[in-house]
């Protein structure tokens, strides 16, 4: 009888050991994480501490062609620019990154996102935007050195997902932000598909340019959203069709769609059904990384949301502001 129990025990251990091989989806810290002002070096550091597999950042260009880590093309939502440079706004009242040199931007302090020209914090539950802590804008070089330095000191390799903001807007200023990005990465010897850098953008044609004209071997991800949002001139309706995905397969490794392209949501945030986008993407060997899973603003049950995308939609990763929460939920399920 005891031998019988021992066998059951051994079988259970064996099953559990098989589970060791199961891989959980990637967790990508959106702009670092929700808990500190977005995209600051501190926010990126805590995403790493929370064990996010990738940290997602955005880059824009300054007047002197330096890559700044910032989400918006303007400075008014996250910095004190209107106090430091009151006369440098455009006629719409906003101060644009591309109108400033790097050394001018260094004088700004960064805070948690507010609605510009108000004192209203966009995400009230997050870090207080009224805090006097002088966070600063980071350059891409500093961000890369943080990544490499942390990988060295923690002995853990996390990756950087770099979103190029609005390449077409930057072209109006006769600069190719993509070329400057690739050159900066080359200076750090970050060029190959196995290097911890991935590039994404909404302008699909820029990805093609990076792959075929700049001959980059870095992994590329196609951001996809609704055409009417005018994120770029790309035709997203085409790129999420079967023919479009087939074309994407020839130069990108994954798609990063607005999560509303993968499932149909009801008014209350609950999910009605799945679209066929993930199945089609997988057919053409494209991984799928939807955005953005925000625990503090999602109206429905967040745990059910993650579970649905994990087990039913079967996405390959999650772009989320709360990487710690998503990791904990995913690991509970295995």
């Amino acid at each position, binding site marked *: 009888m005891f031998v019988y129990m021992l066998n059951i025990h051994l079988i259970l251990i064996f099953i559990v050991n098989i589970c*060791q091989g199961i891989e959980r989806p990637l967790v990508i810290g959106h702009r670092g994480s929700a808990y500190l002002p977005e995209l600051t070096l501190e926010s990126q550091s805590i995403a790493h501490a929370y064990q996010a597999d990738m940290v997602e950042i955005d880059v824009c260009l300054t007047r002197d062609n330096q890559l700044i880590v910032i989400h918006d093309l303007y400075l008014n939502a996250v910095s004190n620019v209107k106090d430091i440079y009151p006369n440098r706004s455009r006629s719409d009242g906003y101060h644009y990154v591309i109108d400033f040199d790097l050394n001018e931007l260094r004088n700004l302090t960064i805070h948690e996102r507010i609605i510009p020209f108000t004192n209203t914090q966009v995400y009230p539950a997050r870090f207080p935007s009224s805090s006097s802590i002088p966070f600063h804008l980071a350059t891409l070089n500093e961000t890369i050195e943080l990544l490499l*330095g942390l990988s060295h000191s923690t002995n853990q390799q996390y990756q950087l997902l770099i979103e190029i903001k609005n390449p077409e807007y930057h072209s109006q200023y006769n600069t190719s932000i993509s070329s400057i990005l690739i050159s900066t990465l080359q200076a750090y010897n970050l060029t190959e598909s196995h290097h911890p850098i991935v590039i994404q953008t909404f302008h699909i044609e820029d990805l093609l340019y990076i792959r075929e004209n700049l001959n980059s071997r870095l992994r590329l991800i196609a951001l996809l959203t609704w055409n009417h949002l005018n994120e770029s001139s790309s035709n997203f309706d085409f790129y999420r069709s079967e023919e479009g995905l087939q074309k994407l397969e020839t130069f990108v490794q994954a798609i990063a769609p607005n999560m509303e392209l993968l499932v149909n949501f009801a008014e209350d945030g609950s999910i009605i059904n799945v679209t066929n986008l993930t199945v089609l993407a997988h057919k053409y060997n494209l991984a799928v990384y939807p955005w953005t899973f925000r625990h503090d603003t999602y109206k429905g049950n967040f745990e059910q949301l993650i579970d649905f995308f994990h087990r039913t939609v079967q996405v390959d990763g999650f772009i989320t502001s709360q990487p710690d929460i998503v990791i904990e939920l995913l690991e509970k399920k295995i």
Partner: protein
Amino acid sequence: MFVFVLFFYYLEICQGLQRPLVIGHRGVAYLPELTLASQSMAHAYGADMIEIDVCLSRDDQLIIIHDTYLDGVTNIREMFSNRNRSDGRNYVIDFTLEELRILTVRERVNPSTNVQVYPLRFPSKSIVPFRLSTLNETIELLLGLNHATGKQRQLLIEIKQPEYHVLYNKSISKIVIETLNAYNLTRSSDPIIIQTFNIEELMHIRYNLHSQLRLFALMTVYQAGVSVSDYDFYRSEEGIRNLSNTVQALAPDHVLVVDYDINGEIIGTSDLTKWAHQYNLNVYPYTFRKDLFPGSSFEKLVEYFWHIAQVDGFITDHPDVILQLLQNYTTFNTTSSTTLSTTFNTTSSTTLSTTINTTLNRSSTNFLHLFLLITTFLFTSIQRSELYF
């Protein structure tokens, strides 16, 4: 036998529900010490407390820095060429906050040789512009992170060398208490603790400044003529009894808690922890560093201090490592969820693939052992009852 099994698991459960505190020393080892980024990582890793050091600037601002000089962790020599003293060093108290703000902070180097003190840590040559922060900013970081994450971590503020600051007619403790007052951080229930090596200064804070904040007594090896307080007295039974009227815990150099042989292996425990506990004081030794420790096994070192020396917490540069060790030896996970949940550790694949492997930690294996023993008991008791027929 059944009773024995139950008793064994009851003991394990009790141990698991109360793990020692983990205190992130100067934040974490992975980023330049005491920077806001380093403190943020300590918070994210789950350290119960974040330990920081404060010194005064020339204009009485509280600067978060460990040394009273700037040459170990900043680029002061590149920014100011003629402000050093005769020993070659630049002292914090000789500079205003505005001047200190232009410095960049980097991973610690030996100022004479420019060699990185801990070679495995963040590269000291990196151009990432970390900055010195003030106590106000550090307090706001803690409160802001506690608010944003919903996790209540605490700040352990070490006042560096009050007796040195007195030479400049500055009462650093008074300025610390006033700063904390401005943030309404005054009670023993607030997430702030103060510690210092100057025991008499702790008395001053408690009885002259009338602070109700929790206080820890730092202790090191007593050197006559050098040490500011008589640690040989304060770690005697009488001294500990004396301290117990004023402080809530001792933070001793780990060599005062256990005895080491020539090779760094532990050969015994001193009476310090026993006496401290007798007088209701907790014990938090320093400093546990995974990249610099006595003996041959960091895991065994931590285990000894936990189970044999029975300290109440660890002051460590690697809070994530110690938290992991404490969880691996615990049957039931106590940190986040209160229900019995099986948790998995993840390690990144070294080939930088875009998928992750998960590995089982010991909590789940123990759960299976529990299952086995209960079912074994059930079957053996059924067997025994069969024998009666």
